[in-house]
């Protein structure tokens, strides 16, 4: 149940769509993450145990402190378009919270709107995924999640599973993490995270996302 003594990572997924919650849950579980899904930003904050004193905005209702200590969340992945609190609003609240701001946040959206993507990345989102989210997207979460664990727990058992990473920036992941531990999160945004940001932007803008064709030998013939 997301207890920090286990080496499994815990992801909180936020989406108002029932189908998409089911999908993201399956994607994350396939990648061996523990998953909690909620259907709104408000519920996400409740789950995270948001406190009044953690917020710069005193209008945020404080919630029972019990959940805050026990549940460790290593990454939050949220839909952008949600009624009430949008994914962007949620992102901001998380970044404004002293207890939550170090949790990496990823935004998902069905709409490819470059200004939306930039805004989220500038606000501190690690990645921006276009929906429908796929396994190859979820594979990109790993380096962000690894940031939140102490070094000795970072051994990657999932390396055997097919990973579509193969990108140079992930080869020196440990170096990268050492760097990050010395710098504040908001400095990172302007430095080496730029390559991530740009990549997400580029992928977001590209009309031409390569998709495997269904008739390309994926099926096993009887």
């Amino acid at each position, binding site marked *: 149940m997301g207890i920090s003594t286990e080496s499994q990572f815990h992801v909180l997924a936020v989406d108002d*769509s*029932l*189908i*998409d919650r*089911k*999908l993201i849950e*399956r*994607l994350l579980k*396939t990648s061996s993450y523990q998953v909690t899904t909620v259907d709104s930003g408000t519920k996400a904050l409740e789950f995270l145990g948001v406190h009044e004193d953690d917020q710069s905005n005193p209008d945020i209702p404080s919630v029972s402190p019990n959940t805050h200590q026990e549940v460790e969340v290593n990454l939050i992945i949220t839909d952008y*378009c949600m009624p009430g609190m949008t994914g962007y609003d949620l992102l901001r609240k998380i970044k404004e919270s002293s207890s939550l701001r170090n949790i990496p946040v990823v935004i998902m959206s*069905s709409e490819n709107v470059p200004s939306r993507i930039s805004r989220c990345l500038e606000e501190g989102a690690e990645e921006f995924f276009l*929906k*429908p989210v*796929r*396994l190859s997207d979820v594979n990109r979460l790993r380096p962000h999640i690894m940031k939140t664990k102490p070094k000795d727990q970072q051994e990657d058992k999932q390396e055997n599973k*097919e990973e579509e990473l193969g990108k140079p920036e992930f080869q020196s992941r440990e170096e990268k993490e050492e760097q990050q531990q010395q710098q504040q999160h908001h400095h990172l945004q302007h430095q080496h995270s730029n390559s991530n940001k740009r990549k997400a932007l580029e992928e977001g803008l590209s009309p031409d996302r390569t*998709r*495997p*064709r*269904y*008739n390309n030998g*994926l*099926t*096993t*013939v*009887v």
Partner: protein
Amino acid sequence: MERNQMHKHIFLMRQSFFDQGLLDDQFIQLEELQDDANPNFVEEVVTLYYRDSSRTILNIEQSLEKNPLDFNKLDNYMHQFKGSSTSIGAKKVKAECTQFREYCRAGNGEGCMRTFQQLKKEYAILKKKLETYFQQTRQAGPSETACRPRMN
């Protein structure tokens, strides 16, 4: 012998969904998430989709009866519906959703209604076909070379 025939039949059925443009690659993504621990994942998602979206369809239907039409509201409903349809790979349904939203933005009520009728047709056709597909897949039982593509 018969079992192999059933599997072949199912395989061809599935292939026809793609050939006829009813389903797209996203459906394959769902299949790839299915495994021994979650052997009915695709059917579960599709069932959930039809259950969940029936409410949205009703909402749209009711909204289309209003006068004047609230295109913003209609567009919002359709945004939701399009999202779910995309998530299960319902290609034709998704295309109708896109068309509908275009008519919303153009403030074209007639266009919306026409498209919605077409959408409901496609939606129903797909439902029937997938129900049959899942049912027959169950009947045929597990197979080493089942129609579900393996992750390589």
